[in-house]
């Protein structure tokens, strides 16, 4: 049994840090990075459970998460590039075309 709880707590803390970063940072690139950190936190938990429960399905899930994260990053960065072309900034506070005041 041993360290399983350690891995699970580590995953939660890392997820919390990632979520906090997503809320605090106003830079679109750093927000995307925070999402990556959250995905990694989940991956740690999956692999730890897979190891301690002796079932490789967890590792397969992690592989799927990694691959879809790579796809998501490609899409996200294209969108970022397009938005930057239009607005000239990556600061999400400046994206306020729909604001009323």
């Amino acid at each position, binding site marked *: 049994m041993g360290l399983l709880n350690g891995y699970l707590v580590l995953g939660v803390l890392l997820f919390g*840090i990632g979520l906090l970063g997503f809320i605090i940072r106003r830079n679109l690139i*750093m927000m995307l990075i925070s999402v990556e950190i959250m995905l990694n936190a989940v991956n740690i938990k999956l692999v730890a459970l897979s190891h301690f429960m002796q079932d*490789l399905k967890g590792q397969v899930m992690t592989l799927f998460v990694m691959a879809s994260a790579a796809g998501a990053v490609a899409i996200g960065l294209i969108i970022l590039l397009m938005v930057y072309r239009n607005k000239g900034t990556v600061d999400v506070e400046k994206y306020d075309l729909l604001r009323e005041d």
Partner: protein
Amino acid sequence: MSVVRILFFYFAFVILLSAFMGLRQRSPVKALLWILLLFVHIGGLYLLLNAEVLAFLQIIIYAGAILVLYLIMLLILDVREEERSMLYLKNWQSRIWAGLLVSFFFILGSLTFVNKHRGEHTLDKLKEVGPSKILGRLLFEDFTFPLIILAFLLLVPLLGIGLLFVKRRQDGSA
């Protein structure tokens, strides 16, 4: 304290530290370097969990591809250090909500967590056949359909990039 335990605490400490430092660093390039440290150490953590293939795939995909893309994007767009905005100070409620949400799920998870399931992939079996071979068989035999769906999912960004460049060429704009 066994070696594995010491290594785990080292990795866990560096992971949390670098995630924290990376997200509070204001210069984006330095932030990305902390995140690089984070990804590499997560790879190390996977080594402790007998997931060697996954450990190096983690480094190849996250550190070698995804983070490099971010870094290149950062340097192309010439992103300056971000200013501390008013929102950063005003927005304390959402941080509390986020903290409450995470701790709610944590408590819920730890209350309902049942550690009963035992699969058939014990360490002895892994050593006998080879871990990467078992992982490959599982991936391509039991998870064939999700794999095909994933392949289509990955095709979409590829088509998107292609479309982007075709459109740009028609516009004539650089």
